[in-house]
């Protein structure tokens, strides 16, 4: 027994030395490329297959990759960036792009577009404009996306309510939601109606935006527009037309699978268009969904929708192989074989040739979201600038704790809440001047 323990001790002491030896630094002349992304199992599987195909087509390239869930991804990449060890290609998000660019962590893609490494001949400019900061492109859009209202067609039929027109207003929305609630006894609308996205688009459909173009101030002057909206939602919550904040936190707002629409507890639901596939598969067979625009302030006013890049690929500024990274991004954007593997899981592809090439492979839910994106492309507001530096600070430390919660729990009125939000957001944005 004692000998065994002694042996174990010796082994453990020796282990790090042994483990060290078998390192995989096989000196190879291969070009090295590293990639990181966030997502779930589905995306990991597809992306890994795409990378393997890339290595098959380019035998001189050795791609290393890693992935994580959303929250972990940012903890990890931030730490890597601080240590100067970012991978060559990283997935980026619209809400963070400006922040990373401002800290000089990203490389501009324009030189690689100019020299033809990245081919954008089948891409309209509006599809990539979202990655542009101060006139330079820092992330290439991986899929087009837009907010949408998903309507349960069967519930509308049962209640005898016609589907609303594309340019419906918030007033129409309110009366439809209340009518659905009264007639069917379920929620007229699901949760998530007070997220910061609505703050942005209320002003978008007034020809403004939550932030000004330079990101140094809020982009609106009339607080009452958002206060009126907030009040409408809070009233609907209090009347049981929409799940209240308590239920949103405890039940509905956890995952796509817990949304009221999945369990037929709500007749309308707010989503991003690329989530329709997930919704459809969670809801099961025999359901009929219709995607439509977000309501706007006035029927003949600007749309509340814009085409948003779902996520980007960016080249890190810490890379030693920017050209190889650009080549990989081009492959991801323009190669038909790889897009058949990826199957538009990241959103509707930006290249028209790819869209046409993969359309036959898509399921009904994906075709519906492709068609929806087409409709939004015809009727939208111009894409606002990427969220300014300080956006995460505003959402985490102002929007949720000072506007949303106190208002929903009745601590302050919607008017006070919007005023606080505006004042505090101004303070944070002023630092960008």
């Amino acid at each position, binding site marked *: 027994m004692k000998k065994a323990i002694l042996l174990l001790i010796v082994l453990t002491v020796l282990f790090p030395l042994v483990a060290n030896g078998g390192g995989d630094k096989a000196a190879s002349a291969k070009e090295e490329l590293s990639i990181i992304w966030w997502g779930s199992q589905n995306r990991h599987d597809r992306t890994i297959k795409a990378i393997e195909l890339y290595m098959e087509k380019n035998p001189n390239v050795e791609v290393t990759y890693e992935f994580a869930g959303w*929250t972990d991804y*940012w*903890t990890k990449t*931030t730490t890597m*960036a*601080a240590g100067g060890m970012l991978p060559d290609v990283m997935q980026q998000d619209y809400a963070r792009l400006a*922040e*990373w660019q401002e*800290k*000089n*962590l990203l490389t501009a893609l324009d030189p690689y577009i100019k020299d033809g490494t990245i081919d954008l001949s089948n891409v309209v400019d509006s599809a990539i404009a979202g990655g542009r900061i101060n006139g330079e492109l820092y992330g290439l859009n991986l899929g087009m996306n837009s907010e949408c209202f998903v309507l349960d067609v069967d519930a509308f039929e049962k209640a005898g309510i016609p589907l609303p027109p594309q340019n419906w207003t918030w007033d129409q929305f309110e009366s439809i939601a209340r009518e659905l609630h009264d007639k069917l006894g379920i929620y007229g609308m699901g949760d998530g109606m007070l997220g910061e996205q609505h703050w942005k688009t209320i002003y978008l459909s007034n020809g403004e935006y939550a932030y000004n173009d330079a990101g140094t101030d809020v982009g609106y002057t009339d607080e009452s527009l958002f206060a009126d909206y907030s009040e409408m939602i809070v009233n609907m919550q209090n009347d049981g037309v929409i799940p*209240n*904040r*308590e*239920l*949103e*936190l*405890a*039940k509905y707002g*956890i995952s796509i699978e817990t949304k009221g629409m999945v369990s037929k507890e709500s007749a309308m639901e707010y989503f991003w268009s690329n989530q329709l596939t997930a919704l459809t598969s969670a809801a099961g067979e025999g359901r009929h969904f219709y995607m439509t625009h977000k309501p706007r302030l006035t029927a003949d006013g600007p749309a509340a929708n814009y085409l948003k890049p779902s996520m980007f690929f960016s080249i890190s500024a810490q890379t030693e192989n920017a050209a190889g990274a650009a080549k990989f991004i081009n492959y991801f954007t323009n190669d038909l074989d790889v897009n058949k593997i990826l199957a538009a899981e990241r959103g509707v592809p930006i290249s028209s040739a790819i869209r046409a090439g993969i359309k036959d492979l898509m399921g009904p839910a994906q075709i519906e979201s492709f068609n929806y994106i087409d409709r939004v492309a015809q009727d939208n507001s111009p894409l606002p600038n990427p969220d300014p530096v300080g956006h*995460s*600070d505003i959402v*985490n*430390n102002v929007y*949720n*704790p*000072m506007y949303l*919660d*106190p208002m929903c*729990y009745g*601590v302050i009125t919607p008017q006070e809440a919007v005023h606080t939000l505006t004042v505090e957001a101004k303070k944070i944005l002023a630092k960008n001047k």
Partner: protein
Amino acid sequence: MKIKKHSTRESIDGYLFILPWLIGFLGLNLIPMVATLYLGFTDFDMLSSPEFTGLANFIRMFTDDVRYWASVKATLYFAFVSVPVRLVFALFVAMMLHNNRRGTHFYRALYYAPSVVGSSVAVAVMWREIFGPNGLFNAILAKVHLPADTVWLGDPRFAIWTLILLVVWQFGSPMLIFLAGLKQIPTDLYESSSIDGAGPVRQFFKITLPMLTPIFLFNLVMQMITGFTAFTQSFIVTNGKGTPLDTTNFYALYLYSRAFESFQMGYGSAMAIVLLIAVALFTGLIFKSSPMWVHYESE
């Protein structure tokens, strides 16, 4: 002030024994710790180099951050409620499972089960399910004809209690340490006191409790430290948001969110310094009081 005399031989041996720790501390822990202490006095967004700002972070923390005080309140509430309850429960179960009856092995596994599940993603879903509007907890309340329509996780009055319950329910680690402590009490003490006619209650107060005080001290200090630095429960159950109304926004969670989600590593570090000082003072108090109630067989 009495100056202790150390024999040279003993001092050398002492340092030899703690040498592995000393190497690890000086080589691996000290640099990050000192760096954190320094960063507390800077404005550091992690991605560009830190700028020295003196006491600015601390001033902002104490005078201009409502969320900070909410997090202090949530943490103190959590620590001062959950730690005593958890310790008493752990001791109770340890006493219950400290015997050689049949099935004890099985029972220990049973009682350790919640602690094994730990902090996996699955726990978050399960906890939300148990305390959900139509969850198990409300179902039980309905059975005994109590009001059963509370949305526990969404109600600012109760949300923190679900986290307290979660941590109390995962009482396995202090329980196991108590159990090991009970095992170490020399059996002859009980035998001789039985001969003197002492009953189980008297034995508990005269032998078990005093003999267990060193272990109790350990559990108290450790549970206090983990209570003050609590993070995981709220991180997984509220998705790191500390909702509703910041009532579950634990200090360490808020610190993490400031540092990593709002890119304010300097501010986060400053919060960590205040935490360190507060916990150290508190731990120091417990240690100072320990000669009055801790009984060491060896001294």
